């Protein structure tokens, strides 16, 4: 009986490897894009978080969105997943490149998400990203939601850029300081920051809509498959444990109870985690 249990465990391992191979490594090669990540929804969830903390809403700025799009396209072109490009371009270079003269600027990145809410939740769960989301220094925001191939797989990239523009009354005497951190402070501390004019909200950038499963959707599917497999194996082990106890079979084996506990711990961890990545 003990050997049959071990054989069953080996079968589970081979099944998981097979699912990994087919679902995660092979399926994305033949699929295209589709995502439910939308700029309007990202803006809504971001401002919703800010309102709950008593902060003012961020206004969608077309220039910042253009900068975000430029950054996203550069990431696909140079095939990197980082704030600084391999050629040394910082996020602030893209912001300045679109003519947005900022006092404060920041950037959050996300990849492989299929829902807008999951993106914002993932950012909010990370202290450094949450600092950007909830910073009182920013008053404007820009988004890019772009499909492309990054590091060998088709995916959806989300770039979120924050900013506070230098007002016309400001003296633009010193260049903006650059920093390794995402929140950049200006070197100009001489004049008080004027309250900027309220701008008209530019037309929202239309969401990118695809027609087939994306890498993000496949990743979500792999999460739920892992959860289902984990629960199935836990139930199998529980039945085995109860059967052995009831029938009084003497089985020289490990502690099935602790096997189940470890497995359920992993299942809980997978459930708790978002499948996409943030940076």
């Amino acid at each position, binding site marked *: 009986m*003990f*050997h049959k*249990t*071990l054989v069953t*465990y*080996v079968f*589970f*391992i081979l099944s*998981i*490897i097979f*699912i*990994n191979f087919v679902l*995660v*490594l092979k399926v*994305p090669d033949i699929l295209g894009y589709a995502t439910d990540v939308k700029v309007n929804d990202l803006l809504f969830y971001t401002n919703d978080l800010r309102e709950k903390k008593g902060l003012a809403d961020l206004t969608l700025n077309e220039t910042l969105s253009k900068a975000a799009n430029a950054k996203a396209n550069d990431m696909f072109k140079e095939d990197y997943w980082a704030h600084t490009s391999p050629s040394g371009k910082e996020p602030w270079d893209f912001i300045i490149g679109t003519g947005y003269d900022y006092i404060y600027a920041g950037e959050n990145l996300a990849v*492989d998400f299929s829902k807008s809410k999951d993106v914002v939740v*993932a950012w909010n*769960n*990370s*202290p450094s*990203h949450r600092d950007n989301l909830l910073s009182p220094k920013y008053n404007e925001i820009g988004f890019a939601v772009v499909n492309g191939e990054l590091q060998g*797989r088709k995916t959806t990239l989300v770039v979120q850029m924050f900013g506070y523009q230098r007002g016309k009354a400001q003296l633009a005497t010193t260049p903006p300081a650059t920093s390794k951190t995402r929140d950049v402070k200006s070197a100009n501390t001489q004049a008080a920051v004027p309250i900027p004019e309220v701008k008209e909200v530019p037309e929202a950038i239309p969401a990118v809509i695809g027609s087939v499963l994306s*890498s993000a959707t496949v*990743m979500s599917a*792999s*999460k739920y*498959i*892992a*959860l289902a*497999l*984990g629960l199935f*194996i836990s139930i199998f082990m529980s039945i085995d444990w109860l059967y052995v106890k009831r029938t009084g079979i003497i089985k*020289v*084996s*490990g*502690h099935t109870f*602790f*096997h189940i*506990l*470890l*497995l359920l*711990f*992993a*299942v*809980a*961890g*997978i459930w*708790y*985690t*978002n*499948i*996409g*990545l*943030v940076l």
Partner: protein
Amino acid sequence: MKSKHHIIIISIQYVVLILAMFVASLLFQKTADNFSRFYILLILSLLYILWGVWHHGFTERLDKLILLEYSLVSAIVILLSALGLGIIRFF
């Protein structure tokens, strides 16, 4: 009949395992990226094998099959974590 010392050591072993899972859950909440979470589960799974060796070695029931069983369970947990956390795509 098990001695009092024997029972105390086994109880400590159980407490150590539960404590390791508790510490892992705290670390899990502190991290935001999937790689760190995968490493936490990987380390926990490897520690589980060591725990199995310690526990069964103490109870004088350690043999190759029991070691294999703990290794297989840890392998299942590691593979499930890699699949569920989206890590497998990077290999």
